[in-house]
Every structure is written in C-alpha cells, then in structure tokens.
C-alpha cells in the first residue's frame, strides 16, 4: 500500500511541477535584466517600468477592463435568470442555447459573430461587439454555477414560503436571492475573468484601432518578444489569481465545475 501511494504521490507531484514551472519561469524572467529569456543576468524592474509607459498597453488595459465589467454585469444578470429558469422549470430550449457556446470551439463562435455583426447588423466592430461576444459565452458559465447552487438547496424552504402566502417576487427577493448571492458573485467574478482572458473570440470581433489586452500580448509575441510580455503576463496572472480565489471564497462549487 505504502509503495503504491509513493509512486502515485511522485507522479502527481511531477504533474504539479509540469503545471507550475512554465509559469514560474515567466514570472522570474520578468525581472531579468536581459532582453533574451535565456539566462538570468540581474534583477530589475525595468520591464514593468517600460510597461507602464507603454501608451498602447495602458489603453488596452483600460479597454479590457471596460469590456470585462460590462460583459460580466450583463452575463451575470442574464445567466442568473437562465440558471433560475432552468432549475425551476423543465425547459428544453434554454439549456441547449446557454450551454452549447460553453462547449464548442471558440473559433466557431468568433467567426459566426463576425459574420453576423458585419452582414446583418452592419455595425462597426468595436468594444460593443466584443462585449456582446463575451456575454454570449459567459451566460452559460454563470447559469451552470447558479443551477449547481440551486440544486444543492433544500426545496422545502420555498414551499414553506409559498404556504405562508409569499408572492413569487417576494420569495425571490427575500429567500432565493440571498441564498444564491454567493453563487451570483462567484459567477460575476468568473465571467469577469473569462472576459479579461479571452483571446480567440476577441480576436475576431474586435475593431481596428482599439487595442485590447490579450490581443496586444499576441501582437507582442508575434512581432518582437521582449520581457515586457513577461511583465504584463505576471500582472495578469496576479489579477486572475485574486479573482478566482475571491470567487471560490464565495462559492466552493466553482472548484467542482469548470
């Protein structure tokens, strides 16, 4: 028994190492006083300094934040409604509509939205198009979180409320909402994270001339790799780390489902 546990433990640790070492390297080299990500030369904050003076990067960060906040507000609202409706009523269509964007390859969503925006709506691509795109795939995520939370709850409390004469709106406001609030917050944080991180869908639905963070990073990677990329990566990692920890604090079921 001990032996097998040791082997298992060893293999598992190797996988953990595999997961973490690349990221640690990125962070470490963001402080490296050398243009090449090859060997350690000296410690410096230079790259972070350059980053904060990079005008385009700052605009990109601003745009990404605007998009993420808007998309998460929209997605959380619609996703909570969807989650409630799916749990309460035996709906056939809504679950399919909400969950497919989560499961299918992002490129399909990006491309179809591009075609839709240009052909049908004849709109100029910009922040709005990205916000709509992000909302579309976030709704499903939020709905899943809300539904999972509802499934774990005791139905009798709602029956009791009804027996006592509460209207559906009262039931919702006084009982349901407070009970699922942690899940709502977790959902909001998750969709915020998804929006800030998204690359593929943003790639297709963004407009020209409006920089967005992941796309900026992509351009930097493709054209001229400098440790500035490491710096922005480190900062982003810290941000999403904080957000996810916050989300799991509010709703542990995040850890079960993804």
């Amino acid at each position, binding site marked *: 028994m001990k032996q097998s546990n040791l082997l298992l433990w060893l293999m598992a640790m190797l996988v953990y190492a595999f997961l973490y070492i690349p990221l640690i390297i990125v962070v470490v080299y963001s402080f490296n006083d050398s243009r090449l990500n090859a060997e350690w030369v000296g410690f410096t904050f230079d790259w972070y300094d350059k980053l904060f003076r990079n*005008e385009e990067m*700052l*605009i990109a*960060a*601003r745009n990404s*934040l*605007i998009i*993420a*906040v808007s998309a*998460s*507000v929209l997605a959380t609202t619609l996703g909570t409604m969807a989650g409630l409706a799916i749990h309460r009523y035996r709906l056939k269509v809504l679950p399919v509509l909400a969950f497919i964007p989560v499961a299918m390859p992002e490129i399909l969503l990006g491309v179809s939205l*591009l075609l839709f*925006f*240009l052909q049908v709506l004849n*709109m*100029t*691509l910009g922040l709005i198009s990205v916000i709509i795109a992000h909302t579309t795939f976030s709704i499903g995520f939020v709905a899943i979180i809300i539904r999972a939370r509802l499934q774990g709850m005791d139905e009798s409390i709602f029956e009791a409320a009804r027996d006592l004469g509460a209207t559906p709106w009262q039931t919702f406001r006084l009982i349901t909402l*407070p009970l699922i*609030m*942690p899940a709502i*917050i977790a959902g*909001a*944080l998750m969709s*915020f994270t998804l929006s800030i991180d998204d690359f593929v869908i943003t790639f297709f639905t963004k*407009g*020209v*001339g409006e920089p967005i963070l992941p796309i900026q990073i992509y351009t930097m990677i493709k*054209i001229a790799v400098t440790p500035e990329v490491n710096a922005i990566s480190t900062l982003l990692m810290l941000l999403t780390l904080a957000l996810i920890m*916050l989300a799991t604090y*509010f709703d542990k079921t995040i850890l079960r489902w993804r």
Partner: protein
Amino acid sequence: MNRQYILCVFTWLLLCLPAACSLQPEVDGNQVSRDDPVLRLFNWNNYIDPRTLRRFEQQCRCQVTQDYYADNEELLAKLAAGATGYDLLVPTGNAMDALIRQGALRLLDKTLLPNLKNIDTNYLDTAFDPGNQYSAPYATTVTLLGFNREKLIELGLPVDSWALIFEPAHLRKIKGRVTVLDSQRELMAAALSYLGHSVNDTDPEHWQQAKALIIRAKPYWAAFNNTSYIRELAVGNLWVAHGYSNDMFQAAQDAQKTRRSFTVDFVIPKEGATLSLDSMVLHHSGHHPDLAHQFINFMLEGENSAELTNLTGSGNPNQAAKSHIRADIIGNPVIFPDATKLAQLEMLTELDYKHRRLLSQIWTEIKLR
C-alpha cells in the same frame, strides 16, 4: 453571506469602470492642441518620415495619427472587417484596384492638388486608375533579393537571378540562411518569373509548376518572413532574403552604420520582378477629406516626397523630388531603374475570386508539404 462582503465586491466591480476610464494616455508631446482635427492615416510600417508628419501638423494645425499594416491583404481584410474612419490609405496598385471597384474610395478633387503635376507621367494613368481619379502616386518598391555580398562571392553564387532561392544546387550552400516573403502573390510572382512567365499569369498549369518549384526549394529556406529579415540580414544571420527594395536599403544602411565586416546589397533579378506602385487614396469613411487633400498635396511637393526616399530608399515617381534626393540613392540603378530595367518590371493585378481561391489552396499546400 455577510452583506458587507457583497457590498464590498460590487463596489469594487463598479469602481473598476470609472477607474478604467480614467486611465488616459498621455498627450503626445506636440505643440498641437488636442482639440485640433485628427487626420487618420492607414499606412505601411515605416513608410513615412516622422519629421514630414510633424511639419505637416504644424502647417495644417491638425494632428495626424497612423495605424499600420504589413501587407495589402491585411489592409483589405481589415477594411472588409469594418474598419472605418481612415481618411487616407496607401494601397499598392492591385489592392487599390479592388478598393475602386468596391466603391470604397472618394474621387480626388484635382483643383486641390496642384502638385500632382510633379509626378513622372510614366506613373500616371495606370490601368488601375485611368486618369488618376482616385489616387496620387506616393512611392515605388521592387520585390527582389537582398544578400550578403561578401558571403555570396565567397560561395560563388549568382546574385542576379531567382535561381538563388529556387535551385537546390545553389540552395545547398546557403541552407537555413535564406528567407522568402510570406506573401502568396509575391512568392508565386517570383516563381513564375523564374519559369519565364508573367507575374500575372493565371494558367493553372503554370501555377502547378510554380508550386512544385517552391515545394522543392522549401526545405532549404529558413522561414517565410515579412518583417524580421531586415534585421537578420543586417546582423549577418541571414545571407539571402526575398523582400522589398526599401527594406533591403534599410538593411544595407544598418549594416554600414554598425560597421559590419560585410555589405548588404540588392539587385533586380534578370528574369523579372514585381514593381509596386503605392498611392495615396481617400477612403469614403474618412471624416476630413479636405485635410486629406491637403496632405496629399503636401506629400506631392518635391522636398517632402524626397524625405521618404532619403529615409527608406523607396523609389520615387515624383520628378520635383529628384533634386532633393541623396546622390547615392538617385544613382542606384535598383531604386531608380532605367527604361530597359523598368520594362522588365511588372505590376501585380488583382485576381478574381476563383483564382484567389485556387491560389489560397496552392498556398496551403505549399505550407503543408
């Protein structure tokens, strides 16, 4: 859950919004104020001298912002994807052809462009834009081969022929030290020229031959590259590069400035090459056509036009500019080819969708095999 936590998180989320909006970029250190009209230019990388722009901004009391593209395809794709608000574009002939036929450009008001007379008549009245209703010629480049002169002499390789990048006999000596352009049209044009056909040949048979030629040579090439070959040539990592004449000029200058042990040189292959005539055009979605006209007229002035050539070594269709251009550039037979050499150069024409599709398929195959 504690009410306070909820309030906390939501306030934080909401605060992000105004905080994000307040992340304003610093104003460019210009004497021009932020309320001035903004002229939006969509241009190639490295295709205008910043000093020229600053002088124009002073003169027009406006601001000029630039966005960049590295390829005509990129320009067209971005415009097709709904990019609006650009006043001026600088497309090459065939891309301009597409734009004119799409009805995407504004007609030029010649009365606002007295300096148009400065242009060499050879470059006016092209097949793409008869009578120059939409375009004013800006600069020319030739797609050719740039190379490390000393290294190639040492290896005994010919420098005046496309064979340098297509024949395994030569390629064997420079394996891994050659790059070609990552451009469907340009690479096919080079292959077609080498095979003795026109760059605009659309015979499927010839295309298959060109494809075979490219696939045969591909293993010796280091990469398909549009941008970093300039640097690699200048530092000596690359010995041969397929690229644009103005980029090669820049590489040559860089190598000279850093006192390398070698020189970078470039010639027009004897089998023929493509000439790109880039012109200034007005996009219909631009908000300042008047400023755009002003800019065009400004750039048509000999002195301003020459500044570009002096900086990038691009060919110049402007007669009045000649007296302002550096002697070594004017004298360069590649940048300013004589009549016989000019006859060997062709401009690319736009393909119809069937051929574009076929070319795209051939290109995919080239990449894959």
